[in-house]
């Protein structure tokens, strides 16, 4: 049939024989892509009298929006928290590897480190689009050093910092990190004095603020949310438990002090969770470390040495957990199985919710018309069959 497209001559791909995640439900429908974005086929038909140039038979696969990992410390031998001269290559290497897990966008995460690590690494890692070369970088996630010594977990105590109260916390942030360009998220402890103004400074710059590694009480956590904090780093881990007289940070899930129109998301490294309506704001993260993808043994995580035992990662010589070696698709499968949630809920926890948290849901994390065509093709067991970025196949199982 002669082409009569009036808007663009770019080729149109139609994914057929698939179930797509749309409007929070898996639906039997085709997915259309043009110039890296999801296309509205009805508009194409009536406005442009256009049709597909290429059809991709998905053989019954599920098409989910590409997964977004907002907390990943490295993988396959790469540790993002090392003062490397070529941090960019390390990020790129991991970016390529995680395509296998269905991840199309991520936030390389740095754990608490001395100033020279941040000053060296941060300028080398820039926000950029994904593609055949690997998943896109949405920005860095800086977990620490402004965290609590009591809940440091695997973070090295000697490099924790506090805000010099009254000195203006922007100076503290700049002194610690060097630069806030290309930073998507910062995890800090809101009980530290001076942290409220740090939260406001960061939010003003479009950096998401997450609460974690903290002994804050609920009131301090609520203050932080009012100042703009919107995320909780690995809920339940490295924070006070929910106590009936003071629910602490965990209490944010049921707090009535969250300002109208604002949402507090919470990260989970998926294991042993029970679903409830609060799961609407659940964001699955891997918190993967350099050892992910490698055989058991010893690896680094910033300034610490980590030992892998089975599926656990501990600070060497201790039983303190430090990150995981899970992959994103493993987390999605485990979450679904452990919580009994629906397929749609599990997929959205790894795609839609992280996109909403980072404020990029107008183009990522969903299959709405106009969104970037970052796709994860999965079988019924939620194993990744293929990954697409901007409509281009970037990984296929068996390739």
């Amino acid at each position, binding site marked *: *049939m002669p082409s*009569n497209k009036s808007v663009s001559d770019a080729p149109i791909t139609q994914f057929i024989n698939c179930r797509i995640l749309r409007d929070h439900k898996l639906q039997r429908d*085709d997915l259309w892509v043009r110039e890296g974005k999801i296309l509205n*086929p*009805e*508009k*194409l*038909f*009536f406005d*442009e*009298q*256009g*049709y597909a140039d290429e059809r991709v038979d998905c053989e019954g696969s599920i098409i989910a929006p590409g997964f977004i990992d907002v907390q990943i410390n490295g993988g396959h031998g790469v540790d993002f928290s090392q003062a490397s001269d070529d941090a960019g290559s390390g990020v790129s290497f991991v970016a390529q590897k995680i395509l296998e897990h269905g991840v199309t966008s991520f936030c390389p995460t740095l754990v608490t480190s001395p100033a020279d690590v941040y000053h060296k690494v941060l300028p080398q890692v820039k926000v950029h689009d994904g593609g055949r070369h690997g998943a896109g970088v949405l920005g860095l996630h800086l977990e620490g050093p402004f965290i609590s010594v009591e809940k440091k977990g695997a973070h090295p105590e000697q490099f924790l910092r506090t805000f010099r109260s009254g000195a203006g916390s922007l100076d503290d942030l700049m002194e610690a990190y060097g630069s806030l360009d290309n930073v998507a998220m910062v995890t800090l402890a809101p009980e530290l004095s001076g942290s409220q103004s740090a939260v406001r400074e960061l939010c003003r710059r479009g950096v998401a603020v997450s609460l974690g590694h903290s002994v804050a009480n609920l009131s301090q956590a609520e203050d932080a949310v009012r100042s703009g904090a919107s995320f909780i780093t690995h809920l339940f881990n490295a924070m006070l438990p929910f106590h009936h007289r003071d629910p602490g940070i965990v209490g944010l899930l049921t707090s009535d002090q969250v300002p109208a129109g604002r949402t507090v998301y919470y990260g989970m490294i998926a294991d042993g969770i029970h679903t409830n309506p609060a799961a609407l704001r659940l964001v699955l993260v891997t918190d993967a470390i350099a050892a992910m993808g490698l055989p058991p043994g010893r690896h680094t995580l910033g300034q610490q040495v980590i030992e892998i035992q089975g599926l656990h990662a501990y600070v060497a010589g201790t039983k303190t957990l430090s990150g995981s070696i899970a992959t994103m698709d493993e987390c999605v499968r485990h979450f679904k199985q452990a919580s009994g949630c629906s397929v749609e809920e599990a997929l959205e926890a790894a795609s839609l919710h992280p996109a909403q948290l980072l404020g990029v849901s107008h183009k990522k994390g969903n299959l709405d018309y106009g969104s970037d065509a970052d796709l994860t093709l999965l079988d019924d067991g939620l194993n990744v069959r293929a990954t697409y970025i901007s409509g281009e196949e970037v990984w296929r199982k068996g390739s």
Partner: protein
Amino acid sequence: MRLVILDDYDLASEWAAKYIRNRIVQFQPSADRCFTLGLPTGSTPYGCYQKLIEYHRSGDISFKYVKTFNMDEYVGLPRAHPESYHSYMWNNFFKHIDIDPANAHILDGNADDLEVECQAFEQKIAEAGGIELFVGGIGPDGHIAFNEPGSSLVSRTRVKTLAKDTIVANARFFGNNLSKVPTMALTVGVGTVMEAKEVMILITGAHKAFALYKAIEEGVNHMWTVSAFQQHPRTIFVCDEDATLELRVKTVKYFKGLMHVHNKLVDPVLSVKDQ
């Protein structure tokens, strides 16, 4: 007239779809000679569209050289609105088949000049060589397309104000909110459909029974515009049992007795695979 009576909605839908399929396959449409098909919307033809999609998926029929002309469209309803007839046709038919988008014609209820739009539509039908088979339904008030009671039986494509009955019947698609239902529509005229080589009217359900009675057992009357087809040389009415509830027993028995003749039109059912 042929009055084809099947036991239920599904069987009626299937019979109609088989008939359309046979007509298209037999015609052997090609790039130089398209099969022109007039199409309706609504709950009645839904089952028929489902069967046609099934036949397409199994490879027995192609719509590549079929030109379609829909009967009507609301005025002023955004095209992307889920209740527009454009949306209906896309979701329930076009998106599942291999029709060339340039061959799918639906009146534009948002055109700047509605009269020009109507005339252009008539022109497109003429340029396509006229309609080979016009498929339609019937309203509870006996209307064909939006040719409400009182419409001229020789009318052409034009703007019509909808009757209260029609608005009430359509309210269920607009959250039962009468104020949300469009009040005007563009519609092919009775005369436009009469010019088709063949007309097939689908009528199912007890609520259509009285209209069917008025259409075929009483006189030609502009208050029941479907009655105009009594004067068309080739009309088929496809119904289910419930739609015949207001007819005389004699009428029903006569036509049921002819089913072995009618069924020759759909048995054997033809396929492009055999060509």
